[in-house]
């Protein structure tokens, strides 16, 4: 793991991996969404409204995956003090929040025709909304830490504590009666016909690649910011030092 502790080595890897992930992810997710919109069959009960599945479910998984990435990076930062871990956690927050928002919006649009309501306060919907607020809290905290120059371990602790919501989201439809359906895909089996399952998995893979690409791009941007600041500081120090010499000479 510490092989990539050197930002230079990370940057040389991320430089070609970022566009590769973004382009292949956009192609795969775009193809799966197009298939879902135009060629996937209508569902037995839901008809054409099922097509939103191919956007709703990948974004829901990645919303949870994004916080899992924050939690794992936070653990690595707190325990091993890996220099890139706090950057990885911070870089996952905004795409995670965006995917959560897309998941909530598409779920609401889907709920109107499928359930007869835009929103209900059942366990799944409520815990997903809590996840969005946790993302907002994490982003605000990370920015405040940046501004005040406080330790990046503060958002890391928040990221770890917030991870308790992830199993709650997953089990909300199993523990409690809810309007949201129970999971269609569980370990090793699927209650979904292959006409729906295969494009769903392709879309999920594509969106995951996009997520990875965005995280790498944001990590590069954060690293560049840190380097620029360090360079400015060095320059300011150098200037004042040379001025100081000028006065004494």
């Amino acid at each position, binding site marked *: 793991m510490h092989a990539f502790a050197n930002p230079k080595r990370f940057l040389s890897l991320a430089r070609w991996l970022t566009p590769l992930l973004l382009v292949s992810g956009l192609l795969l997710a775009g193809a799966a969404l197009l298939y879902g919109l135009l060629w996937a*069959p*209508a*569902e*037995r*009960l*839901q*008809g054409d409204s*099922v097509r939103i*599945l191919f956007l709703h479910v990948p974004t829901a998984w990645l919303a949870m995956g994004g916080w899992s990435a924050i939690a794992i990076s936070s*653990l690595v930062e*707190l*325990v*091993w*003090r890996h220099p890139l871990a706090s950057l990885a956690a911070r870089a996952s927050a905004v795409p995670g929040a965006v995917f959560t928002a897309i998941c909530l919006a598409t779920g609401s649009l889907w709920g109107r*025709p*499928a*359930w*007869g*309501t835009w929103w*209900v*306060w*059942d*366990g799944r919907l409520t815990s997903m909304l809590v996840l969005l607020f946790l993302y907002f809290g994490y982003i605000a905290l990370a920015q405040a830490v940046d501004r005040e120059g406080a330790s990046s371990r503060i958002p890391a602790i928040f990221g*770890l*504590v917030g991870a*308790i919501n992830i*199993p*709650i989201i997953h*089990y*909300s439809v199993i*523990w*409690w*009666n*809810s*309007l949201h*359906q*129970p*999971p*269609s895909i569980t370990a090793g089996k699927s*209650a*979904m*016909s*292959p*006409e*729906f*399952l295969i494009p769903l998995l392709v879309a999920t893979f594509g969106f995951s690649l996009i997520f990875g690409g965005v995280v790498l791009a944001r990590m590069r941007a954060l690293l560049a910011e840190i380097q620029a600041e360090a360079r400015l500081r060095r320059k300011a120090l150098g200037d004042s030092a040379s001025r100081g010499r000028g006065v004494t000479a």
Partner: protein
Amino acid sequence: MTSGLKPKHQRLVLVLLALVAIIGAGTLAAWALRNQASYFYVPKEMMANPPSPDRGVRLGGMVKAGSLKTDPDGVTIRFLVDDGEAEVPVKFSGIVPDLFVEGSGVVAEGHLGADGTFVADNLLAKHDENYVPRELQDMTEAQKRMAIEETN
């Protein structure tokens, strides 16, 4: 180093202890919420513990196949909500969601009348986890399997 542990391992132990405490607290909270966080009562719970008629509650379950009847006024429907162990008769006047069909899930919002009939003000359809294309719905199970195998 007084404890003899490397700082790295000390931090790992501390973080793991904190995680165990958080997960324990979360599990306890979820356990305490196991009744309150449910979105609706199932017929068995409603029969065992009938809510008072002035209390708004939700009732959820399957619309029993063959139980759906329309009153002579044309807008009031009656059906049985079933959870495999008990059933509750439901009365509703109004527009039902598209996915409201016999044999499918429903959540009714309303109150339990004194006569044991649930009077619903609103119906929500609950679909299950099965996703099957429309073309396959009229086939028998064996035909479905064959059709699915062909597409694989």
